[in-house]
């Protein structure tokens, strides 16, 4: 079958889709991943084929402009939209942004999908262009989560993606899809009645080369400090100002500290305690198996990678989804959520670090969560579920317009 993937141009959004793509390719299915043109290199670096669509939209510039209260709408079909951009906060604000980005991708993507005729669409929660295409073609849409389901409440908003639906003559886009692929052990997840298919989280953190120093076991205990990739892009240096303070608070611990950060974040760390082993980019799935605990910003990819490695986690969140992730994790007992970035004190960091390094209950909870996560069906085991879903079609009435006459795609079928 043919499976179309849709993603925002951001690591935290795309990376969780990659192992699902590998599983489908390895089972002989065709996969095509769509996002903005500049993101094609990131997609192909995961081994999957890229379909560039729409104009380039700098996601982080868009979010920064929105934060400054400036014009942030990237999409101009035949000139400026008559209605002004909305400046709502919280969930409605998030879905406004996702909707505008979907507008930018939509024309190219719909045209391609009418030719290629995917049997299934897989999308990450912010990529509304995915369910749009699925709805138009009358095929099932599958939503793959980043971690705990932060975006499920958008279901409650009657206006979610309404302008997108209206532009294509649909009553609604259905941004929650027909099925949700869920990498969370139940203890980490919210409770609701969405149809969910558990799928084991397989870490993919971008291009990875095993460094020499990670080929031998650490001499003693090791703690990882990482701050993801998104905050730098969203807010510049001010979003990261407290991180060196976090590292300094670890000076008194008898542990080796590995600060795994982007090249662009490295300059923040001018004076380092002597127990710092390394500062710079390290793929988390190679680093974390050698660590005893982790301190981070609460990004979904970091949280899930640490979770499947069985590490207790100390989280210092800055933005709403990170705070949500941190609270969900803290509720399992496998870590602690500290006050948001700018307000956190050294004393709180020290106490939190003592907990994740020394507290037996916390370590046991982390190992229990790991065991639950690793017991979920692997992506390869979920492929038959997706095949059945594609064969069964959608429960909705197939009210979509018939495919264009050019949509003959016989020889494209693989598998």
């Amino acid at each position, binding site marked *: 079958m043919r499976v179309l993937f849709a993603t925002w141009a951001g690591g935290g959004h795309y990376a969780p889709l990659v192992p699902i793509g590998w599983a489908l390719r390895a089972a002989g299915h065709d996969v095509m991943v769509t996002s903005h043109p500049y993101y094609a290199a990131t997609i192909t670096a995961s081994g999957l084929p890229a379909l560039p669509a729409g104009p380039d939209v700098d996601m982080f510039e868009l979010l920064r402009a929105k934060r400054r209260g400036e014009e942030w709408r990237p999409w101009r079909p035949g000139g400026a939209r008559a209605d002004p951009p909305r400046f709502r906060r919280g969930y409605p604000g998030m879905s406004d942004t996702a909707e505008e980005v979907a507008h930018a991708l939509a024309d190219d993507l719909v045209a391609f999908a009418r030719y290629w005729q995917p049997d299934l669409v897989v999308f990450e929660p912010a990529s509304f262009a995915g369910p749009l295409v699925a709805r138009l073609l009358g095929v099932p849409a599958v939503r793959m989560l980043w971690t705990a389901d932060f975006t499920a409440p958008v279901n409650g908003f009657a206006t979610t993606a309404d302008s997108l639906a209206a532009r294509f003559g649909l009553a609604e886009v259905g941004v929650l899809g027909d099925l949700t692929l869920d990498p969370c052990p139940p203890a980490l997840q919210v409770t609701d009645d969405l149809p969910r298919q558990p799928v084991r989280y*397989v870490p993919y953190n971008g291009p990875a080369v095993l460094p020499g120093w990670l*080929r031998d076991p650490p001499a003693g205990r090791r703690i990882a400090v990482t701050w993801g990739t998104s905050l730098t892009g969203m807010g510049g240096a001010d979003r990261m100002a407290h991180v060196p303070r976090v590292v300094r608070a670890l000076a008194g611990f008898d542990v080796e500290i590995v600060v795994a950060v982007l090249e662009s974040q490295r300059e923040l760390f001018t004076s380092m305690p002597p127990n710092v082993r390394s500062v710079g980019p390290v793929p988390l799935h190679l680093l974390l198996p050698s660590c005893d605990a982790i301190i981070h910003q609460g990004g979904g990819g970091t949280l899930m990678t640490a979770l499947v490695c069985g590490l207790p986690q100390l989280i210092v969140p800055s933005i709403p989804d990170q705070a949500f992730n941190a609270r969900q994790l803290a509720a399992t007992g496998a870590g602690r959520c500290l006050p948001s970035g700018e307000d956190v004190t050294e004393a709180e960091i020290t106490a939190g670090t003592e907990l994740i390094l020394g507290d037996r209950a916390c370590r046991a909870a982390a190992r229990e969560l790991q065991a639950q996560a690793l017991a979920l069906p692997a992506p390869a085991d979920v492929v038959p579920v997706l095949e059945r879903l594609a064969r069964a079609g959608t429960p909705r009435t197939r009210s979509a317009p018939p495919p264009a006459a050019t949509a003959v795609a016989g020889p494209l079928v693989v598998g």
Partner: protein
Amino acid sequence: MRALFVTWAWPSHFYPLVQLAWAMRAAGHEVRVASQPGLTEAITQAGLTAAPVGEDVDALRVMRPFFAWVADQDRPVEWAELAPKGTATVRLYVALADAMVDDTIALTRSWRPDIIVHEATTFAGPLAAAVTGTPAVRHIHGVDFPYQSHEFEPAALARICDRLGLDTVETLGLATVDPCPPSMQVPARIRRLRMRYAPYNGPAVLPRWLRNPPAGRRICITWGTSTSTLTGGRMFLPPRLIAAAASLDAEVVVSLTARDVATLGQVAANVRVVESIPLHLLLPSCDAVVHQGGNGTILTAALLGVPQLALPQLPDQLFYCAKLAQTGAAAVLRPGEVTDQALASRMAAAISDPAYRLAAARLRAEMLDQPPATQVVAALEELAAAGLPAGRQRMGAV
């Protein structure tokens, strides 16, 4: 479990491993790909974790005199002619093993993989497996040409075995993963794990012109990634193929490496020249493909049910194409048979003769009948769990 894939640094030897590596990752297993530094980017670009080992070896420098000699013959130089040279036929692979083996052993000792999957000509894999007592599985990328030299390999590797304290080494592994359609494969005394082929031909971006069906018939001319590098361009046929295609009522798409494109010059209006579009994106829109007889091209076209015209020149290509021709899905012209008239008539036949189309559809159906990579993963799990047969117990593992 942990799987260590081992291959020497040559993309057409690495790409066939990618599908199984993804299947392992998608099944929740850890995977690292050990190769020389020169392959690091190709590995990370496939989404996999690279563990650089040893030093790069200039394979071209080692092999160029041989390929230059082959190019000058203007007749098929087949395996039967090479076989009497014995251990000399695997000289390059022994040099590669020498350059990779120590680091591969160190990596195996520190990471402790449950299984080693090695590309058939990468002997650092079986050597590290023997030294550390790790189960090893061999992976071939099509018709089993590498098997032809297996009887010479223990002797060729004797010096390295001696240095490592091994009596001998088994280069065929506990089993062989085989993506070749059974009807095209040659016999071998091995335990075979058949696998449905799924193409990975390098980083892939779908260009805009491939997002609509072609207006009429389309034929693809491609020359792989290795052949013109190996032969120094002496037997580079695409310019003659393009000229011969002028008489066809079809759009001609020529997909070559950037270096090969630069040698082409002006082409006719019905010819579209592109730089290395992955074949699995291009061939679904094509009615036939003309190529140099490389394994990746053969199997990708076969899986997609596209009739082929193959122009093999090197001994391994001749070996593959002899089997390909037997399926009826391809016309084959060998050195000495290549004339402009023969090229034109075979291309026309590949596009329009229903016999090729029918045989290609049969070959495709046969390939789709093979077990998917997920089933091979299950077999590897069993092999890893069973460990080594009696008499080949772990030794030297830290």
